[in-house]
């Protein structure tokens, strides 16, 4: 039995998503292990982002079940929750393929917005905060400390007071991850975190993600095209093609799977077998 099947944080069963006549995700079942890095890969249009949007509640799946289980045993059926509740109750954070920061707010403000629900509680749903009670000041200081911690992790402490829109692209990607981590999520979903990064930056990203896995209780689910990132850090890889799962296993297993190679080369499986036969007689 694979490690991710023993105590999965995320369990997808028969997930299907139709857009009119288009079958974007077709009967997908997969698990993401607790405190592991799980990668979903596949050619363009394979349905990876659709899976993500179903998990984070931005789409409601046509069929299937998405079960999230926290470390403390709390269970959530994500297909039944609206998106903001998945983030709030399920503690699922996400980033976006094309970065979605609050560009007109400072980096620090961005990181505080992500701690909204906690701060709202501390401010007595605004009423106590309005009268300047110290409870809120305390909570805000703690929130800023947490933001500082993650800014330090992503190496952007010096840019904390700059508008988020002023940062270079790589910096914005890191802010988005820091913003998500400020929610102290159980599950962090990263939609192509390495897209548009140069090799050095994507190396740093690997380090950051590994560190998150080591130092926090957050499990990571990521979509990625950059094979360096995927193969370098993933514990478990799921490969999609045309909305179907074609492979599921450790990086080693997936790397040598004929169907995966065929899908990525855009040829038939037989062609890969033939090629193998020629290379290794």
């Amino acid at each position: 039995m694979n490690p991710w099947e023993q105590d999965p944080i995320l369990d997808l069963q028969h997930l299907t998503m139709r857009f009119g006549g288009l079958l974007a995700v077709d009967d997908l079942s997969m698990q993401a292990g607790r405190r592991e890095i799980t990668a979903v890969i596949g050619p363009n249009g394979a349905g990876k982002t659709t899976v993500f949007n179903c998990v984070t509640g931005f789409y409601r799946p046509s069929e299937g079940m998405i079960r999230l289980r926290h470390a403390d045993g709390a269970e959530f059926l994500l297909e039944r929750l609206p998106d903001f509740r998945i983030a709030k109750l399920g503690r699922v954070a996400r980033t976006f393929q094309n970065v979605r920061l609050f560009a007109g707010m400072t980096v620090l403000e961005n990181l505080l917005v992500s701690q909204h629900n906690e701060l709202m509680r501390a401010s007595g749903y605004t009423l106590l905060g309005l009268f300047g009670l110290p409870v809120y000041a305390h909570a805000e200081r703690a929130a800023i400390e947490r933001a500082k911690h993650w800014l330090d992790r992503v190496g952007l402490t010096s840019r904390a007071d700059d508008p988020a829109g002023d940062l270079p692209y790589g910096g914005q990607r890191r802010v988005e991850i820091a913003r998500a981590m400020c929610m102290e999520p159980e599950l962090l979903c990263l939609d192509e975190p390495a897209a548009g990064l140069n090799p050095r930056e994507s190396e740093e990203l690997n380090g950051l993600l590994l560190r998150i896995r080591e130092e926090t209780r957050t499990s990571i689910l990521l979509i990625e095209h950059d094979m360096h990132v995927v193969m370098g850090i993933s514990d478990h890889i799921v490969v999609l093609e045309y909305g179907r799962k074609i492979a599921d296993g450790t990086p080693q297993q997936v790397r040598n799977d004929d169907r995966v190679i065929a899908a990525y080369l855009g040829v038939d499986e037989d062609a890969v077998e033939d090629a193998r036969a020629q290379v290794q007689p």
Partner: protein
Amino acid sequence: MASPSRIDLAAALKDAAVAAAIALGLFGLLVGLRTEASSTSELELLPRPLLLAIMVAAVAAGRLLIVLLYQSGAFEIDTGRFISSDTKARIVRLSRFAGPALLLFALAMPFSADRYYLDLGILVLTYVMLGWGLNIVVGLAGLLDLGYVAFYAVGAYSYALMAQYTGLSFWACLPVAGILAAFWGVLLGFPVLRLRGDYLAIVTLAFGEIIRLVIINWSSFTGGPNGITGIPRPSFFGIPFIEGEGGFAQTFGLEFTPLHRIVFLYYVILALALLTNFVTIRLRRLPIGRAWEALREDEIACRSLGINTTNTKLTAFAIGAMFGGFAGAFFATRQGFISPESFAFMESALILAIVVLGGMGSQVGVAFAALVMIGGFELFREFAQARVLLFGMAMVAIMVWRPRGLVATRDPSVFLTEKKTIPAEKVAEGRT
């Protein structure tokens, strides 16, 4: 466009000729012909070729001048050339004092002004308050509300009707008027806040009209188009502003003058406006205010961070409406008479114009815009016919030169080491 400093006379003449032709077409019937009742009371057409020729010539000459100036590069103004970054920094530093200076002026005004300026001050402050109230909805949360006057009306009628039917005092009715307006804000908000941008604007516009029509047609309750008269004037916390026994003047050993009430009203609206300002500034630094601004920037990202966007929008709507309601109650007690005419769409448009001109989200900008718009409008009272035209032109000019309003920069709500003002072009405008 021709490259600067190369004058192409032929093109300019051609352009002027086209402009003249358009002017001829436009003015030909409007100016060139005039109908007049003759002595036999028949309609006669009087051609006025000379006037027409003069106007067309003026247009052609003006166009020629503009094109030539364009070609010579006179319009290519580089602000950096006039205003060095040094001066700019000085202006920014000076603008920090704009708020306190305006406040001091507002506080000291009643001591030196006569009745006319006091009334004008009250009017301006009412619009400052309305602008600040709407600023929460439009400027912070980015929700375009074209029916803000509805909440103003709800507040005014709440006070007027409550005073009429229950006889409660202004100070007892004021919170109720605000709460009722907020309640209507929530009631309107529930169905419409899932709409975005233009659609939201249209529905709020319709809501504003609905409230007005209900007031007009429910005449058994609201007095219909005749309005409500004899709304009680505010007292000095129970002491009425009357001459003689028990009046304000006698109680405090002053000589009676009707000005006392005006001064009191002035300070009431100043206090209400400052309350709006204080609450807004406070809210901006609380999670709810940050969520509003985040909502303006990116709604989808907000939802991914666990923010209930519907509730967040509703609070913005309700709080904005509440201040509109307060202002309405004040309006009713100041006027002593209200009718549906005071709550036409023009009012909504005027308040929105104040917010947009002042710079969405900026408190000082909105106050300044209200002062300029309402005060300026009053000053040009003598040129009754031209003042709307003048103001239209002024607004176009401001929107061309400062498309994001007078003060469009954004002050961060929190900072780690250094507070840096965020330039206007980074800040998102209300789209959601």
